[in-house]
């Protein structure tokens, strides 16, 4: 692996772009939701202001070391995901630190932030945090099942565990996208994506009117700022993962922006019109249809 300075700087630039796009995307999504409600919604620049505000709060309290580390772990999860995710296919600058086994690492990083958060939020001592964590962990475990099945199906299909290789295999024509070559894996993954992005019916981790508001209940100020920064990065990067795996990757930033937007919009599209599941319903749901489809996708390629 090449650890040259320029590559590092380009990765940072990529991170910067991703973060800002992530924030713009979240405000755009909220404006879309607002429009369906009949409202105008937040200004598009609201996330940045919120972030400045959060970083500028004067008083912060802590519940202990892990409480500090929680958001840091979470950020590490997001940044780690980004670091090993090839963003722009074919670009020498924005391949980040993608390597041949990066898919495995990325699946791990998806879980890493969650665990860190669990430790930190648990330290906060808020019972709702604890309930949120237990919900989050159990739900995430089940989300991973169809996702992993889909990835295995892909690995079998493309015979590789490198994202770059998978993207490469999809180039040429839209027909080459995994979406068309392996629709069952795509469906399984896209259903698990609904859970990963945390919109209804699977937003039971934060669930404002049940357990306000789950793990981040005690987080405020800089801690929350870090979590929000991470959220922006994570959403784009995860969408980029799905883009890379199923939608032919991106060859330019514009393509990335469009594709991540559409992929993220999918979760919003479902989320706006459905209520939230209970945790056992959610777990059961993931283990039912998406898992079944995932298994089918593997069976097809076996």
């Amino acid at each position, binding site marked *: 692996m090449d650890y040259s300075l320029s590559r590092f700087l380009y990765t940072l630039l990529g991170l910067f772009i991703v973060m800002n796009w992530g924030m713009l995307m979240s405000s755009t999504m909220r404006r879309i939701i607002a429009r369906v409600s009949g409202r105008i919604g*937040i200004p598009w620049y609201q996330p940045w202001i919120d972030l400045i505000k959060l970083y500028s709060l004067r*008083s912060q309290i802590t519940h202990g070391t892990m409480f500090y580390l929680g958001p840091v772990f979470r950020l590490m999860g997001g940044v780690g995901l980004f670091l090993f995710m090839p963003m722009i296919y074919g670009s020498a600058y924005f391949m980040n630190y993608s390597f041949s086994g990066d898919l495995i690492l990325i699946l791990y990083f998806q879980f890493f932030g969650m665990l860190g958060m669990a430790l930190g939020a648990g330290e906060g001592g808020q019972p709702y945090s604890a309930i949120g964590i237990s919900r989050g962990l159990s739900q995430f475990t089940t989300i991973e099942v169809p996702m992993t099945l889909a990835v295995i199906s892909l690995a079998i299909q493309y015979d590789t565990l490198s994202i770059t290789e998978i993207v490469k295999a999809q180039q040429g024509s839209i027909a080459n996208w995994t979406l068309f070559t392996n629709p069952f894996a795509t469906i399984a993954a896209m259903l698990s994506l609904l859970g990963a992005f945390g919109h209804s019916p699977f937003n039971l981790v934060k669930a404002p009117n049940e357990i306000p508001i789950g793990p981040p209940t005690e987080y405020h100020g800089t801690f929350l700022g870090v979590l929000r920064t991470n959220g922006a990065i994570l959403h784009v990067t995860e969408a980029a993962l799905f883009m890379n795996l199923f939608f032919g990757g991106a060859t330019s930033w514009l393509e990335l922006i469009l594709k991540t937007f559409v992929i993220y919009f999918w979760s919003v599209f479902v989320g706006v019109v459905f209520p939230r599941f209970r945790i056992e319903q959610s777990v059961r749901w993931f283990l039912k249809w998406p898992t079944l489809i995932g298994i089918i996708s593997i069976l097809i390629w076996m």
Partner: protein
Amino acid sequence: MKKDFDKDALSDMYKDKFLAPENEIRFVNAPDGSIIEVNPLDDYFCQERPKELKPRKGVVEKFLNWARAESLWVLGFGTGCGSIEIPPLSTPRFDMYRFGVQMRATPRQSNVFIISGYLSVKTLKRAIRSYEQMPSPKYIIALGSCTINGGMYWDSYNTINRLDHYLPVDVYIAGCMPRPEALLAGFGKLKELIKEGKAEKANEYIQNLDWYKANQKKIIKDWNMPDYNW
């Protein structure tokens, strides 16, 4: 602005009355068989007296104040009838989100506390606790007559008359109920104040903590929490 008051006269009110049972020191059997001493006041609460958090100087503070003004996070705590006008504000007709005002479910993440009307003593206790848990800088908007001089319930035995005796208030809005527009205008006024650097009531609260605490303890008969809830 330092408030003068006779400390001696209030001293007997100012002592802790009693401790809630759940805040007493207790011993817990750990799974490994050892015995752990739990002192909730030390373990769950920050006993340190809060410090005044001075604003920065110059352009930086101005910029930060602008950001604070444009991002007002309101604590979702409907203390009185005024909370009926919060749903219209967050729904299509008035849509306060476009003004940078958003609702938050937890005090830790909120900056603005809307005291929506009358406060019963029982709610006041929770309101103080919520307020103190909010990170500084924090602001209070007082809604309606009841917070100013008792309003409808001026002669009630269970509602306070003057909110400014218990919590520092930045903006008062007249009405009973104020229309949602009045509330939006109140947010506008608050923004103005923050941008001018005049919304420093959180520090005023710390400066006069003794005075506020004395007032609070005078009416909250079962004061069973630490003096300051971080």
